């Protein structure tokens, strides 16, 4: 090995070693994100009810995951909308809230929790909208994460 090659190899090893040494000082998560999921009554991605009775409770499960690089204070809102209700990654639905769930999650933690819901009014293709909000410490207010989900239901007359 000539002197130039040895010098380059040494420089390369040095750079790699220095990079490894300063790893603890680098940010842990460069692409922070959160997760929202709605699970059926068996805590699986399926078995969702297509029809429920007005006034009768039914069970779903929610899933929230935190990969933001720090603890997050999440709030899941369940809203009842219809076909004209506007909701997107940037706009939250303007619809009545029927259920609220709050939870603090550390980085890389997730939770599954029951959603005991009851719809009072009958209707066809009722949109159950699930939105994830998180508390912003700087602004001291909840902010819409842009994560949402929906379930279309037929709400029949009480049995």
């Amino acid at each position, binding site marked *: 090995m000539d002197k130039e090659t040895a010098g380059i190899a040494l420089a390369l090893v040095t750079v790699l070693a220095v990079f490894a*040494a300063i790893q603890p000082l680098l940010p842990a998560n460069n692409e922070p994100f959160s997760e929202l999921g709605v699970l059926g009554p068996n805590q699986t991605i399926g078995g969702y009810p297509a029809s429920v009775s007005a006034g009768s409770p039914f069970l779903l499960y929610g899933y929230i995951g935190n990969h933001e690089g720090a603890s997050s204070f999440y709030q899941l809102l369940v809203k009842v909308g219809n076909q004209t209700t506007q909701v997107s990654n940037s706009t939250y639905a303007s619809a009545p809230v029927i259920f609220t769930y*709050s939870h*603090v999650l550390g980085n890389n933690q997730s939770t599954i929790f029951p959603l005991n819901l009851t719809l009072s009014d009958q209707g066809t293709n009722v949109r159950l909208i699930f939105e994830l909000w998180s508390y912003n410490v700087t602004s*001291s207010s909840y902010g819409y994460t842009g994560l949402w989900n929906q379930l279309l239901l037929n709400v029949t007359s009480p049995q």
Partner: protein
Amino acid sequence: MEHREDLTRYRVSRGLSFLLLTIITLSLCARVGGAAAVTQAQLSSANEEILSAFASVSGAERSGGNVSSLDAKLNDAITLVQDAEEVNATNPARAAADLQNATAVAQSVVAESASAKQAGGSVRQATEATSLSAASAIVVVAALIYLLGGRVYRKAWLRLYRDYVVRPANG
């Protein structure tokens, strides 16, 4: 005459029993109705305490503190507030106790956040010092190898093979 006295005694005893029953019933009603339902303002106040505690926890985490136990405590406080909301109509006394406990938990989280922040600061300083020292040491060793490596290698080679007898290949 004796019959009349018995009748009077019976009436007095019945009246006293009725009075006693009335007093017991009233006292029970007073106990049940005595605990006023928790107001929306009290619920909001407890929620504000929890959010304030979360802000303290976030600060501690940014400083490098381990806040996993504080996160768990905040979830306990949230559960207490949710329970208070659920039972407020049926059991206001329990709802009030839940709110009181939730507020106490949130305040204890704020208090513990300060020590977590301090501990985190020390750990972070130690980590930074270790990392920077290791990086500096690596650079110094690399420079020494580059400058003196050849000389050291040759000296070591000579020391290792000083007794080596050189024989010609075709000898």
